[in-house]
């Protein structure tokens, strides 16, 4: 497989002779991206860490003041928890809707698959600027959903959807769905249909086939998608603040206020690192649980 190195290394500016390519290890393949990260990501990240250890807004002395201020305040912990929960809710909602969509895609004819793929990427094509406006239109007091609900007589008063967590999760479900679907569809499409036929002909119910055959085979794609959805909904500053509104406080908005309006970079840096660490920790825990579960299944 190290032939891949030839393809990967060439654009990085190295003419890779096959003999040399063969020597490239897994680490060698990861190196070009690693180097790009070292140059463009690690250094800024370290600066951010350094900034968080300034004691004062003007960044004149070192100290743990900002960390103390962040960690010793229950409100900040609540905001962290709310942010992580929002991410988890988005993951659950996108999976609940996205997985059946992927099944639909699997079973569709090539022509319909084309249409469904186009539908799946649609949210990415509408800029975040106007997408948030569309959600105001749909969820608003005089919005599409409320017109429908009032018109059908399902409620006497307009429902409050906009600027609630429910509304935010609904809109994030749309916005993040492509991140779930693209990895999932590319993996689902590879599942051998004969396995499903075999499962059915052995008398398994469709539910059993879903949980025992499709889900395990689609797991890598589903996991990748969930990770992307979780990471990007916890950091989706614009959607969170425009659709969520001021009653819902999440960490990215706090970071924005502190960095930009108050010009308190040390505190903003502290909050940014706290977000990075807590989101990564949740991902690691889920990945660990996944490995343990997989170990049980195989053992």
């Amino acid at each position, binding site marked *: 497989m190290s032939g891949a190195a030839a393809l990967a290394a060439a654009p990085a500016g190295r003419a890779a002779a096959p003999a040399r390519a063969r020597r490239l290890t897994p680490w060698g393949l990861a190196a070009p991206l690693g180097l790009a990260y070292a140059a463009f990501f690690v250094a800024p990240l370290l600066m951010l860490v350094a900034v968080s250890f300034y004691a004062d807004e003007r960044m004149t002395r070192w100290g743990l003041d900002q960390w103390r201020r962040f960690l010793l305040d229950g409100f900040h912990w609540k905001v962290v928890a709310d942010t992580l929960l929002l991410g988890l809710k988005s993951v659950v909602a996108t999976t609940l809707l996205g997985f059946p969509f992927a099944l639909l895609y699997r079973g569709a004819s090539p022509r319909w698959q084309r249409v469904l793929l186009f539908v799946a990427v649609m949210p990415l094509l509408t*800029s975040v600027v106007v997408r948030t406006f569309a959600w105001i239109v749909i969820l608003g007091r005089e919005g599409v959903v409320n017109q429908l609900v009032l018109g059908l007589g399902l409620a006497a008063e307009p429902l409050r959807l906009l600027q609630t967590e429910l509304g935010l999760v609904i809109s994030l479900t749309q916005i993040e769905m492509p991140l779930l679907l693209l990895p999932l569809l590319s993996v689902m499409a590879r599942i051998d249909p004969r396995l499903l036929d075999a499962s059915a002909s052995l008398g398994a119910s469709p539910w059993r086939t879903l949980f025992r055959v499709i889900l395990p085979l689609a797991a890598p794609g589903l996991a990748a998608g969930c990770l992307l959805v979780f990471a990007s909904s916890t950091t989706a500053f614009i959607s969170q603040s425009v659709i969520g509104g001021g009653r819902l406080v999440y960490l990215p908005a706090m970071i924005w206020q502190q960095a930009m309006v108050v010009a308190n970079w040390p505190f903003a840096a502290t909050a940014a690192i706290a977000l990075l660490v807590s989101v990564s920790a949740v991902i690691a825990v889920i990945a660990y649980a996944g490995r343990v579960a997989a170990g049980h299944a195989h053992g």
Partner: protein
Amino acid sequence: MRMARRRNASEISYGLVMGGLAVLALLILVGPVLVVLATSFTDSRSIRFPPEGFSIRWYALLLDAGRSRQIHRAAGNTLQVALVSAGLATLLGTAAALGLSRLAGRAGRAADAFLMSPLVLPGLAFGLAALMYFTLLGFRPSLELIIAGHLVVVAPFVLRTVGASLSQLDPALLDASLSLGASPLHGFRRITLPLIAPGIAAGAFLAFMASVDNVPVSLFLSSARTDMLPIRMWGMMESTLDVRVAAVSGTLVLAAFLLMLVMERFTGLTRRMRG
């Protein structure tokens, strides 16, 4: 007899639940886009829904070389940055995913977590820190810096999607090809690449769109000459509810639709996606 009935019931419940959820997914995916498209054809002077009348004048204004010059310039910059940064991210990310797929154990997982971390760092914090860092090195804001920043931010998308495709790959296939005397390059081209192509395509597309829609990194790394589209659109939306903002999205949807038709004709994207 009873068994058949139970199976029948479970088939019905399966169809109802899965079908219902899939339809809901379709509605949620398409609804907002339809709202945007409808709004972009309004005859009113500001973005509003339901639209008033039907008119393509906002598209005409958007395409007007004189009156939308700044938008065109910003769109050009944005496309250039997205193509180069997503292109680089696809190449480097695919290579890295190939490497990581062969690394087991704690070190591999740590490397994987590290390479995913830009996705988790708030863009605003990264943008500010990157500007501090590049200034320290003596660089001024420019398109090159935006590309460098975007490369880091969009690479995780490629890494994840290609990684997911690779985990399905049976190593025995490749071993078989090698043991039959095929060169590694040949093995990669004929076996690995076709199998992970859908993953690469999906990752490249996600990376491209993430770059096109990026606000925070662009905000800090752009200069007066490297105006970027989403930032310009924010200004238009916030101060005047400019309908051209919706027309930009309408144009993108149309472009993607045409691109999909073209790709279908020439490379059979979905055919490969199905395998």
